[in-house]
């Protein structure tokens, strides 16, 4: 029942490192929300990546993507896409390299 036999989420493709953040909304109708939807909301009160959610909930990425897309469609979470253009950003890359050297 969890994802009702679906294999693809609705709408825009969700990157595994897209950040998901629960939104406060006045009223949520319980219609067609599964316990796992609520688990996702619980885990992303502070922004969490799709991959982090999969890890925390011990669910496959494909399932988490569908759950997150459902919540997004209902306005219950917001998504922030990764800055892929950041990969051409030398400053960001240097920050990554320097950060790794400090480990």
């Amino acid at each position, binding site marked *: 029942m969890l994802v009702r036999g679906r294999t693809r989420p609705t709408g825009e493709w969700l990157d*595994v490192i897209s950040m998901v953040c629960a939104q406060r909304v006045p009223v949520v109708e319980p219609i067609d929300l599964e316990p796992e939807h609520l688990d996702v909301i619980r885990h992303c009160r502070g922004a969490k990546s799709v991959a982090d959610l999969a890890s925390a909930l011990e669910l496959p990425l494909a399932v988490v993507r569908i759950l997150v897309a459902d919540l997004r469609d209902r306005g219950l979470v917001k998504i922030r896409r990764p800055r892929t253009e950041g990969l051409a950003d030398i400053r960001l890359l240097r920050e990554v390299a320097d950060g790794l050297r400090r480990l």
Partner: protein
Amino acid sequence: MVYGDCDVPRLGGDVRQLAGGIPQLADDDFDPAPDAVKILVAGGFGVGKTTLVGALTEIRPLRTEEGLSAPGAHIDVVTGVEEKRTTTVAMDFGRITISENLVIYLFGTPGQKRFWFMWDDLSHGALGAVVLADTRRLADCFPSIDYFEHRERPFIVALNCFDGAEHHDVDEVRRALDLEARVPIVVCDARERASCRDTLVTLVDHAIDQIS
């Protein structure tokens, strides 16, 4: 706020508690989220991807089972039968927090062609890849190298030195892999955190060289 005997949320404030409970939500529309970058770890089965990710990650390394339900199911060359579509493959996942503003995510999955649909998903926007290789089974990393060469993604080859004593002739490996001179080859020990870290540094430096 209390109405009668029950707690009722403020409109525009917290989510109404349902039976079973939708949790209370954050006040901000979007919690400050760090910049996230992806680094991929590729290579054949048993080459040490799980070990490498495990040596670096600050969280319990995750092995999610991802369903192989992609279109165009693989036909097994040996048996000639179509692979069952419910097969799962383990994906290693790890996280390194550099600062409150920057997090690195590591993803490892097998490099064989039939898993490439997963790579297509993971490699979008990835900083680059470490192709792990075992000199005793060098051919196992060919598909991974193929993948990143054709997509012109920054990658390096890391020779996992399992016994710590085996001598690796990097030039010989470069010839065997027919690898361009600009692609770095390093020797690493996937069990050693420092060695894995240095391997990632080499990859990031290589990615920087590619765009400078």
